[in-house]
């Protein structure tokens, strides 16, 4: 499959009379976006705000981060199963608004995490301090149940992102990158001497606030399957995951999957990047056994020589990670895993909830329990009402001088387990 990504570099976001993209600037009239959000009657009101790198702004609690894109050639549209029909995506041409993100924020449950600081020490830990952020805070109707609340805000985010993406239609991209994988036979003929490499992505799938969707399907109900790595670039995989901000994969990270990008960079040179395998992280132990058996079998059937395995979340997924690693290695497929650690505030505890000698090649996104002091910032988008309740915070979190004492786990994508950031630990 062949997908062209046309990158349109956004250098500023401004509120304006008319929504458009001109000269690299995204002009937004919030009144154009409001109806897109409010078409869901569960949402009562929405407000938009802009946060730019370097500004004294804190966004919290963050639900999801999305990159606006539009499909201009080829089958299907953005976010299949949500905004578009379920046509198979991942081929043709897609335009992406680079350097910016749509951030959905606001309270869904009382203990929700997710902090993006646009300046200060916290900004070093989140990739979304470097993007121009259009932030969307939804207010839902009274008495809405938590499930409905989460779904309403999640889906509104995709609709708004698609609407913003539409503004790019017809604009000449600043740069175009081509991603192309071969069919099985074609790849073997084209790259007879290169090792066959796959990517196994574990998706968070445990229930409310812990779900991931593939073409609109709740991924806890899938049997592990093969996709083209380009499909996620069109929004085939989206996040419904609101907990454990540091190591959940926002939709943005699925769209810009760093493992996929870095494997493509080697494709045809040192490796033949064959495909992506997606699997889940269920609560039920027999599901874990079945899914890890399937991923190992797929790796074998595809004659892969090596894979990279990434996880999402804390605790339970460590067991899936180790099961997958053990079984895939046992098939003779060389495996590198990407994870993060919960080694305690002092760094002295066991980092993972599970372990095995087969996991001899590990990349880590760092210790999520490490404590950081975040300074008081001038402006908060969202609310600080819940900051004491979120993961990695405590009653001492909001200190008298307005600074926050938190663990890195509250910061969005700080210890990302797809290797999105440079943080590590030894």
């Amino acid at each position, binding site marked *: 499959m062949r997908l062209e990504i046309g990158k349109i570099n956004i250098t500023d976001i401004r509120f304006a009379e008319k929504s458009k993209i001109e000269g690299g600037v995204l002009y937004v009239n919030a009144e154009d976006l409001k109806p897109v959000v409010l078409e869901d009657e569960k949402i009562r009101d929405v407000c938009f705000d802009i946060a730019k790198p370097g500004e004294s702004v804190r966004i919290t609690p963050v639900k999801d981060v999305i990159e606006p894109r539009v499909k201009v050639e080829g089958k299907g549209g953005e976010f299949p199963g949500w905004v578009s029909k379920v046509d198979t995506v991942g081929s043709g041409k897609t335009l992406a608004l680079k350097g910016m993100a749509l951030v959905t924020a606001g309270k869904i449950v009382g203990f929700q995490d997710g902090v993006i600081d646009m300046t200060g020490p916290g900004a070093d830990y989140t990739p979304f301090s470097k993007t121009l952020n259009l932030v969307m805070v939804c207010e839902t109707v009274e008495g809405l149940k938590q499930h409905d609340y989460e779904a309403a805000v999640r889906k509104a985010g995709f609709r708004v992102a698609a609407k913003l993406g539409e503004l790019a239609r017809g604009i000449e991209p600043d740069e175009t990158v081509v991603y192309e994988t071969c069919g099985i036979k074609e790849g073997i003929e084209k790259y007879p001497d290169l*090792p066959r490499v796959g990517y196994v992505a574990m998706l968070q799938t445990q229930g409310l606030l812990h779900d991931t969707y593939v073409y609109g399907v709740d991924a806890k109900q899938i049997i592990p399957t093969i996709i083209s790595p380009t499909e996620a670039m069109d929004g085939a995989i989206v996040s419904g995951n609101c907990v454990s901000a540091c190591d959940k994969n926002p939709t943005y990270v699925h769209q810009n999957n760093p493992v996929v990008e870095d494997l493509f960079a080697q494709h045809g040179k040192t490796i033949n990047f064959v495909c992506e395998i997606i699997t889940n992280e269920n609560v039920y132990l027999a599901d874990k056994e079945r899914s890890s058996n399937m991923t190992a079998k797929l790796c074998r059937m595809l004659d892969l020589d090596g894979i990279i395995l990434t996880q999402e979340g804390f605790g339970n997924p460590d067991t899936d990670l180790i099961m997958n690693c053990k079984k895939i290695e046992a098939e003779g497929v060389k495996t590198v895993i990407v994870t993060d650690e919960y080694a305690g505030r002092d760094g002295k505890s066991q980092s*993972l909830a599970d372990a095995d*000698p087969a996991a001899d090649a*590990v*990349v880590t996104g760092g210790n999520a329990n490490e404590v950081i002091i975040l300074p008081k910032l001038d402006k908060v988008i969202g609310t600080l009402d819940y900051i004491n309740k979120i993961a990695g915070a405590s009653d001492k979190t909001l200190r008298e001088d307005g600074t926050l004492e938190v663990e890195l786990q509250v910061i969005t994508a700080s210890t990302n387990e797809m*290797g999105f950031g*440079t*943080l590590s*630990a030894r």
Partner: protein
Amino acid sequence: MAKIKVVHYINQFFAGIGGEEKADIPAELHKGEAIGPGMAFNTGFGDEAEIIATIVCGDSYFNENIEKVKAEILGWVKDLAPDLFIAGPAFNAGRYGVACGTIAAAVQEELGIKSMTGMYVENPGADMYKDKTYILETKDSAAGMRDAVKKMTAFAIKYANGGKIGASCEDGYMNQGVRVNFFEKERGSKRAVDMLLKKLADKPFTTEYPMPDFDRVEPNPAVRDMAHATVALVTSGGIVPKGNPDHIESSSASRFGEYSLAGVTDLDETTFETAHGGYDPVYANADADRVLPVDIMRELEKEGVIGKLNEKYYATVGNGTSVANAKGFGAEIGKRLKADGVDAVILTST
């Protein structure tokens, strides 16, 4: 700014006194002097730091008189009140490495003075002390002196000045078993791809998170005939005859004990106690059968469920005891049990 004051520890060989034949010289304090590698350190320090005294001690003397020499050196260092204490580098010299580790760790722990040393990764002193002081990794022989001094000098200045010490791989010290965050140059996905390429090519690669040590032992086949089996008790719960005749340490045990159960049917507070310092000893001291179930074993013996209880039992304290020591105890206890014809062992902990 005032220069950083450094006290340096070296052995008889690096002090130029002599080799093995001089290894028994007692500790000497040379105030105001930099000796041997200390001169190279001083050159490296430039205007930032200087060695204000050098302590020299023979390796044999140190290791044979540890407590005495440690107290003596700590006394000197306390009076000198340096900003930093440097020992070595010891390269691959085993006894020297252990001496450097011992004294550097003691200075840091007991005097609260920053300390560091340097040695080869396989020096036995490295494993023993890398979590108690900063040990910088050096080559395996004194041919690596120049490199070692360069590394140690840079670290010393940063450390003594109160600079933030980063992760072990950043600042070149041996990992202390504590996970420390830092920013890599490449993002995680790129590092994963690079690691995979090495793994695919069968080239060496370094994992960023070594899995915990798995020392799994396959269980022996089940004992078929328990009614005729000799069963022994072995414990890491510290149960010893009253008074702890072998002085087994309450933590970080360096030995185990072998004790007779001849004629003993029940342990009570007048005869047995625990030497263990890692749990509330009240219940074990009141009735040591709670940890070492001699009473039940005698009952089973009487009922014919087991053949007999071994006449000797073995005990140590599993409280911060090093894996190396524990392995050594296990091997020796196993040998003795085998020699006594024991068929099965019940291991009890705390």
